[in-house]
């Protein structure tokens, strides 16, 4: 049944690509932006899911790594003129002011710098457990923000960066998202993925089997930081302005929300929740505007959207405690069991 599943997967990808192509042609810039934003959230939520869901490390440092990736990639791609315009308070370090790299290279560089930050933070911090780890990573994320605010000559401080080249096109963001999904699917099914889950389930037993628990944690954390860096860079190249305030805890919170909603430890769950949350956040925007239902009038309640959204989140968590997907995946064999696909002769493998 492997071949059938491969064919189905190929077909699904082709259909999705076609839908994207049609959307890109026919939808307005605003709608496309939302769609593309959800691709970036796919990358970010998988990054967080890798540590939280698959490795069982409660990390809240996401926004910090995103900031690193976003700044590195932005600074490496902006033209010298744009840089000069941005840095009017204090000039940018000369070696960087003249440097302009191709986007792909800058994106990877952003990821690598974030990964390096992850490695440096991870080695001392990953010896901590649960809540302590959460607090330490959260603290790190805030430190990054303060550092960026104060490195005027490198980051332009609180003014942030404007006119970042708009490289995050539909194909770029969805291409990266697809790569990351494929990478995660391969990783979690490999023997390395088994080690991650073993560490998550029982550290002592994993250690007693000879798994190098600490190294597994550091590796997972570093890969996750890389992905967060790439996601942050894509975000910067999409909205074209970044500043330190943008990378606050609220950003991490949004991503955490997606991961929990989709299901800790489920790739497909994260993908579905990313799209759902991003689209809903926009769709519910009308709630913040003046409403005029014939029995009910408001004159604009900013924040009502978040209230409704939080209520929906609570409902999901109460009704399905482990998120939409739990730690299960949507698979073709799952569809088959649900009777949505004709049954194959032999029991379907993955």
């Amino acid at each position, binding site marked *: 049944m492997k071949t059938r599943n491969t064919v189905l997967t190929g077909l699904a990808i082709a259909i999705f690509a076609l839908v994207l192509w049609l959307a890109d042609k026919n939808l307005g810039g605003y709608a496309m932006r939302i769609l593309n934003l959800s691709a970036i959230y796919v990358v970010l939520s998988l990054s967080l899911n890798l540590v939280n869901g698959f490795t069982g490390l409660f990390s809240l440092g996401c926004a910090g790594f995103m900031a690193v990736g976003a700044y590195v990639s932005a600074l490496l791609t902006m033209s010298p003129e744009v840089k000069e315009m941005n840095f009017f308070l204090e000039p940018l370090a000369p070696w960087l002011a003249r440097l302009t790299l191709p986007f792909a290279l800058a994106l990877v560089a952003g990821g690598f710098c974030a990964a390096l930050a992850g490695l440096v933070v991870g080695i001392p911090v990953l010896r901590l457990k649960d809540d302590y780890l959460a607090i330490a990573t959260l603290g790190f994320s805030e430190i990054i923000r303060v550092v960026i605010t104060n490195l005027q000559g490198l980051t332009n401080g609180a003014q942030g960066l404007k006119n970042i080249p708009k490289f995050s096109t539909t194909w770029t963001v969805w291409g990266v998202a697809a790569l990351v999904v494929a990478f995660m699917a391969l990783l979690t099914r490999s023997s390395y993925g*088994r080690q991650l889950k073993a560490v*998550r*389930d*029982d550290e002592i037993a*994993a*250690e*007693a089997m*000879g798994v*190098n628990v600490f190294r597994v944690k550091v590796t997972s954390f570093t890969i996750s930081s890389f992905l967060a860096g790439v996601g942050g860079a894509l975000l910067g190249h999409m909205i074209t302005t970044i500043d330190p305030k943008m990378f606050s805890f609220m950003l991490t919170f949004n991503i955490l929300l997606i991961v929990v909603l989709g299901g800790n430890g489920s790739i497909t769950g994260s993908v579905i929740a990313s799209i759902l949350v991003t689209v809903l956040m926009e769709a519910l925007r009308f709630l913040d505007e003046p409403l005029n239902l014939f029995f009910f009038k408001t004159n604009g309640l900013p924040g009502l959207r978040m209230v409704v959204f939080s209520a929906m989140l609570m409902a999901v968590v109460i009704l399905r405690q482990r998120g939409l997907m739990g730690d299960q995946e949507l698979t073709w064999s799952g569809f088959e069991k649900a009777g949505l696909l004709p049954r194959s002769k032999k029991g379907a493998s993955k």
Partner: protein
Amino acid sequence: MLKIENLSVHYGGIHALQGVSLEVPEGKIVTLIGANGAGKSTTLKAIIGLIKTSGGSVSWNGKSLAGMPTKDIVESGIVLVPEGRRVFANLSVDENLSLGAYARKDKSAVEADRARVFKLFPRLDDRKKQKAGTLSGGEQQMLAVGRAIMTRPKLLMMDEPSLGLAPLVVKMIFDIIKEINAEGTTILLVEQNAKAALMAAHFGYVLETGRITLEGEGRQLLADDRVRKAYLGEAL
């Protein structure tokens, strides 16, 4: 051969092991029995490097294990089956077994051992794809033992493998222990079930509040009055 001399472990102010010495000769089954809290689990954890020792030495085939990280100790051929059904709850039965063979390179022998585990525990065979966390308590213990078989170490240390199992399954597990021993695996067994352990073992040690108080051949200890009174619950 594993040789422990004068081993001492502190947990904060508690002196859990107060100079324990014991030997596990190659090819033998050695058992360590003792009351709750005597320090049996502590001894095993100290050997495999999961906790810090505060004195004494552990040597394995002449080489000191002091300060070695656990994964290196495992690689040198010592494996611990920790107490209390520590299976990986969200992994399937099959994946749990694969993790047992984590440190092994001999792929084909691994598959032979997997087949063997399934033959020993047909219940596990029927539940290959089931998550370990959803197995019954006894099935989880079978899986923990099966996973230990998959490790194929030179020295296998088991912490209360018979805990919570039906008598028939306990007997089966002791048979398996003897069988893998006959195939060349040295075994250090910690048990509450003193009678079964001493019957299976070549040599036994009695641990009392962090000290070895008695040692001798398995059958000889079984006949010892103090052992019979304290650990076999016999009125003399």
